[in-house]
C-alpha cells in the first residue's frame, strides 16, 4: 500500500519554493494548495478552524431553512415556522410547486368593461373586453413572449384572488392588488380608448376548464363561468401616467 506521504508541499520538493521550511519567509511563495497547515501559526490555524466551523454552521442552517420552507407543513415547521420564515423572507422566498400538485386545468380570462363619459356628457358602458385575449395575441407565435404579456395580468389576477375573500380585500395586500389589477385594465384600455373619460371599471373573470384529453372518459364542462367584481371608481393616480410607453400597437380585440 502507499506509504503515508507528507503533505504535498514537501512532495513537490523538487521546487525550492515549495520545500516548506517552516519559517514565514517561504510562506510568501506558498499557495494554499501546497502549504502545510503545520507551517502556519496557531493563530492562523485557529482562524481557519473557526472559518470552517462558521461556514459549516451557517451553510447547514441556510440549507435546512430553505428545505423546511419548501417542505409541506410538518412537525418542525409547526414549532419553528416563524423563525424559518423570518430568515427566508423577503430575499430567499421560493416556490417550486411547478405545475404541482396538479397543473392548472383552466383558462382564466380577465375581462373589463368601462363606464365613460361621452363628449356630450352622457354616461355609456363599453362591451366586455377580454384583456387576457390581448395577452394571447402577443404570445402567439412568439419565441420569447414578454413578461408584460405572460405574467403581468395573469399574476396580478392571482395576487388579487389570493388576497381577497368573498370579494373583500384582506388587509393591505388586498387593497394593493385591487388598485393593481384595475390599473392594468386602464393601461390596456388606454390603447383602445381615451381613458381620461373613464369613470368606473368593472372586471370579471371568465373561467373555462381545459377539456380532458381525447382518450379520457372524463366529461368536463368547458363552458365559461363568470365571476364579476364590483364596479371600481377610477381615481386619478390609477390612470397611466403621461409617458406610458406606447410599445404595443393598439389592437382591437373584440
Amino acid at each position: 500500500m502507499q506509504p503515508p506521504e507528507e503533505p504535498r508541499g514537501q512532495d513537490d520538493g523538487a521546487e525550492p519554493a515549495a520545500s516548506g521550511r517552516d519559517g514565514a519567509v517561504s510562506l510568501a511563495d506558498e499557495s494554499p494548495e501546497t502549504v502545510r497547515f503545520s507551517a502556519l501559526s496557531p493563530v492562523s490555524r485557529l482562524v481557519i478552524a473557526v472559518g470552517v466551523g462558521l461556514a459549516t454552521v451557517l451553510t447547514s442552517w441556510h440549507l435546512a431553512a430553505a428545505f423546511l420552507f419548501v417542505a409541506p407543513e410538518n412537525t418542525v415547521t409547526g414549532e419553528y415556522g416563524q423563525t424559518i420564515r423570518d430568515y427566508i423572507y423577503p430575499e430567499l422566498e421560493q416556490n417550486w410547486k411547478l405545475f404541482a400538485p396538479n397543473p392548472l386545468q383552466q383558462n382564466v380570462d380577465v375581462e373589463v368593461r368601462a363606464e365613460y363619459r361621452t363628449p356630450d356628457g352622457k354616461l355609456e358602458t363599453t362591451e366586455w373586453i377580454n384583456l387576457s385575449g390581448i395577452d394571447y395575441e402577443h404570445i402567439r407565435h412568439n419565441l420569447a413572449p414578454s413578461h408584460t404579456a405572460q405574467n403581468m395580468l395573469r399574476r396580478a389576477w392571482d395576487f388579487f384572488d389570493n388576497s381577497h375573500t368573498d370579494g373583500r380585500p384582506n388587509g393591505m395586500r388586498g387593497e394593493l392588488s385591487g388598485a393593481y389589477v384595475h390599473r392594468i385594465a386602464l393601461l390596456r384600455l388606454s390603447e383602445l380608448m381615451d381613458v381620461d373619460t373613464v369613470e368606473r371599471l368593472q372586471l370579471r373573470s371568465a373561467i373555462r376548464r381545459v377539456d380532458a384529453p381525447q382518450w379520457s372518459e372524463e366529461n368536463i364542462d368547458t363552458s365559461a363561468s363568470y365571476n364579476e367584481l364590483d364596479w371600481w371608481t377610477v381615481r386619478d393616480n390609477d390612470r397611466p401616467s403621461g409617458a406610458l410607453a406606447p410599445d404595443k400597437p393598439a389592437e382591437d380585440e373584440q
Partner: protein
Amino acid sequence: MSSDSARHLGAGDQAAAEGAAPAGNRQPSPFAGLGEKFDSSLARGVSNITRRALGPYQTAIVRIGFAFVWLAFMLREFPHRHVLYGPDSPWGHDLAVRLLNDNHAFTVLFWSDDRAFFELVYLLGIAVCVALLLGWRTRLMTVLFMITVLSLQNRSVFMGDGGDNVVHLMALYLVLSRCSQVWSLDARRARRAAERGVPATRDPAGVLLWALCGLVLALAQLTGFATTLALFDEHGPILSFWEFPGLGWGGIFWGLWLIYGGWWAVRRFAPGEPRLVGEMIANIIHNAGLLVIMVQVCIIYSAAGWYKIQGSRWQDGTAVHYPLNLDYFTPWPDLTEQLGNVGMLVMVLTYGTVFVQVAFPFALLNRKAKNILLFLMIGEHIGIALLLGLPFFSLAMIAMDSVFLPTVFLVWLGRQAGSPVRRLLGRRGAEPGTAPAAGAAPAKGVTGAEAPVPPQAAPAAAQQGEPRIPAQASAEDGKGSGSGGEPDDRRPAWADRG
C-alpha cells in the same frame, strides 16, 4: 497516520485512507478503525474545502449562464422596461413602496421614482451582465449583479415567474463564489501579470473602482438618497434587526467593500501567512456557496417532483396535456393541442418528468446516472422553452443545472467555444490560459491523459506567487498527477464528479 498527525488539521491528509485498514487486519468487525477513518476523513475534508475553490468550471459556467439569461431578458424587455419596472408600471411606485415597507425587500428603485434614475439602473444592469459574462472585475460584478437583479425584481415582484425566482437566488449565491477562476478576463489579466512578473496588486484601475464604489455608497447614504440604507432619520439612529445603526444591507455593502479593500492590502503588504489564511477563508466561503447552489438545485427538483406525485393528474398520466392547452403557455396552439392529444406521449412525459425530478438528488451519487438525468432535464427544459413559450425560465433552469456538468465536458466545451473566438481575435493559440485548460484540477482524475494543460506549460507561472491564477493551479496538478497520481479522492465526490 497516528491520530497524532490526524489531529493537526490536514496533517494527516494523505496518510489517511490507507493507514486505517492495514492489509493484514484479521478483525471481522466492520467498525474497526472507524475512529481513525473518521479523523482522517475529517482532516481530508477540511483540507479539501480550504485549499482550493472547487468546481472552477462549474462555477464559471453558472456565472456565465446567469449573466447571459439576465442579459437576454433585459434586452428582450428593453422596450417594455418602463411598464415592467419603471415609472409607467401599473404596479406604481406608490403601491410598490407600501408593499416594500411591509416586506423589507431590497431595491434601489425604492429610493426614487425618477425616470432618469430608473434608466441608469436598467442600463447599469445590462452593463453588469456583460461584465459578469466576460468575467471582468468579477467579485465586484457579482455584487452589482445582485443589486440590479434584486432592484428590478423587488420593484415589481408580481411580474416574475419561476425563472426570475431562480435568478434571484443565484444572484445572491454567486456573491460568495470565486467564479472567475477560468473563462474570465480576470483570469487572463492575472495570468498576464504573472507572465510579466507584475504583482497582481499593481492594479490602479481596481483601486480606483474600489474607491469609486465607496464614494457612491457613502454619497447615497449621507445625502439621504438611499433611504433604506440611511443611518439616521429625524428621530436619530435607525435601529435595525440587531439594534445597530446601518446593519442590514448598508452593513453588508460596507462589509464587502472593506473585505475587498482588505484583501488587496493583505496581498500587498502581508503576502505571507495572512494572505494564505485569506485565500483559505475565501475558498471556504466559495465552497460553502457552491454547496448551497448544488443543494438548492436539489431542493428545487425534489420539491417540484414530490409535490407532483401527490397530484391526481400526475398519477393518471395526463398532467402534461393541460399546460399544453393553457392559453398563456401556448405560443404554438395548433402544435401543442395536437401533442396534448397523443396519449402515449403525454403519459411518458408526465411520468418521465416525475421520475427525473424525484430521482435527481439521488442520481448525484452516481456519475453516469447523474449525467443521463442532466441530459434529460436539459432536453426537457429546451422543450418547455419552445412549446410553452418560457425561454428565460428554461435558460435559468439550464444555467442552474450546469453546476452539475462534468468537468471533462466543460473543458471540451470551452475548447470548442474558445478556438473560434481566439482565431477571431488572432490570439496565439497555445496560450497557457486557453482558460479551459488551466486550473483543471477536477478534470485530471477523470481524463487522465487528456489532462488539458501540458504540465510544462505553467511552472514558470507557478513560481510567481500569485495564487489566484488557474494556470498555476493546473501546474501543481500536472505535477501531482505525474508523480504517482495524487488521488482524485482529495476532492469530495459532489464537487469533482461534477
